[in-house]
């Protein structure tokens, strides 16, 4: 896979992740700024580094498993490694314009 195809696949993963919503805020994880990094470890293996708005978020397991499912079900991907990190901590500055609009900002 060349660099251009890799970039396109990463963008496709990002778009797919917009299907995972934080049910409390009703904003998807991408626009909420929870996805820190998407990379390809190998051709069909993706790695995602993400966070949550607060440590101990009660929706922790649900959101992480939603992210995993959304990427694993893509035909271009066989496996995904989801890393949940608290450093650096999430801040509202990470939200996209769409995310801020959805929250009434």
């Amino acid at each position, binding site marked *: 896979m060349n660099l251009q195809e890799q970039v396109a696949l990463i963008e496709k993963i990002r778009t797919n992740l917009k299907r995972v*919503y934080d049910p409390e805020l009703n904003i998807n994880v991408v626009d909420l700024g929870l996805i820190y990094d998407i990379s390809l470890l190998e051709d069909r293996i993706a790695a995602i580094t993400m966070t949550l708005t607060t440590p101990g978020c009660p929706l922790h397991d649900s959101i*992480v498993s939603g992210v995993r499912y959304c990427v694993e079900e893509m035909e271009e991907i066989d496996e995904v490694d989801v890393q*949940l990190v608290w450093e650096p901590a999430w801040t509202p500055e990470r*939200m996209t314009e769409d995310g801020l609009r959805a929250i009434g900002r």
Partner: protein
Amino acid sequence: MIPQNMGSETNIKLPFSFILFSIIAIVGSQIILLFQGEALLNGSFRIPAIWSAAHLFILGWALMIAMGAMYQLVPVAFLTPIWNEKLGFIQFTVTAVGIVWFAITLYAAPQSALIPGIVMLLGILMFLLQMWMTLRKQAKPNILTLFVGTALICLFLTILIGITMVVSMRTGFAKDHYSFLFHSHLLLGTAGWFTLLIFGFSYKMAPMFSLAHGFAMKLAGYVYSFYMSGLVFMVGSFALDQPLLLKGGLLFLLIGFSLFAYHVYTIIQKRIKKKLDRPFGFALLAIIFGEVIHLLAFLAALSNHFTSFIGPLMVAYLMLWIAFSIIGYLYKIVPFLWWTHKYSKVIGKKEVPSLKDMMNEKIALPLFIAFTIGVLAVSIGLVLKISILFYIGQSIVTLAAVIFGAVIMSVMKK
């Protein structure tokens, strides 16, 4: 970075068992109070039927909800899974049986309340053991641990004093100190256990529900110090029968509560979520009610009218501060529990409802207004001894309790 799976989610059957039991208890307690209007209007708060209703309300409703909510919130707030879920189910059964048995015995034969009281005590002690073992596993204790830990100690003392009172009634043991025990029991059970618990969890939930970031937590230490000093002074005033200590205690409680109210205000100011959910707004409104009640209690003591106002003030404290906070937060917790049970496995796979869609928010406003009007009517009716006002108020509160129960149950249909 922390391990991927903290295993922080509790089996929802556990908190739900407590919540469903509590709905039956609140409706039962309000019906008993409705039929005891005459005694209440005559100022006879210390009769078996009122004891029964009060315990059914405080233990069967508020305590059971608090315990159920803690099974869900402790792992969230302290990043620590519940120590032993199986013990949780056993504890629920023992406590539920104990509370029902205790309430019935208080109503019918209060002098025989010792054994059901001990069963209930056993259930609560199992809960305290569960929380103790859970909290001690917490990697980094913080100010929230202090609030919740102290609240649990207050709960233990409340129950211990309660049992001592039952023993005293049967055997005459410590009968000269009955007044001290009775007042300390009320204070530690309300301002000690419930208020400190609500303070502690509010510090987690207020920022979480408003999406607040970048606020300082320094004030929380002052809140704790002042409120605790107030509790110590109050217990001292009961022991020594010193009006000055009582005034000092109420002043410290007022300062502590005011600092808490101001602190939550500063947290909410830092929120990202512009429009707050209505039920969460009611939990915030409860803080304003709590502030007014603390102020009125202090003013009543200053003007030497504390004894005449403490009954209605206690009703208002229980309903407008403690019950409102619990109901407000419950409106958020119950949909979350059911959502997790039903949709957590399908998030990302298909469209799932938001938490807001899980519970009828439209009914929240009329429900809270009904509760407020009902409680105010009951309190004013009791102070001015206007029976019609009391009965209208108590009927409204009873009806609101039934509707509230139905709203909670309706979540399970979503």
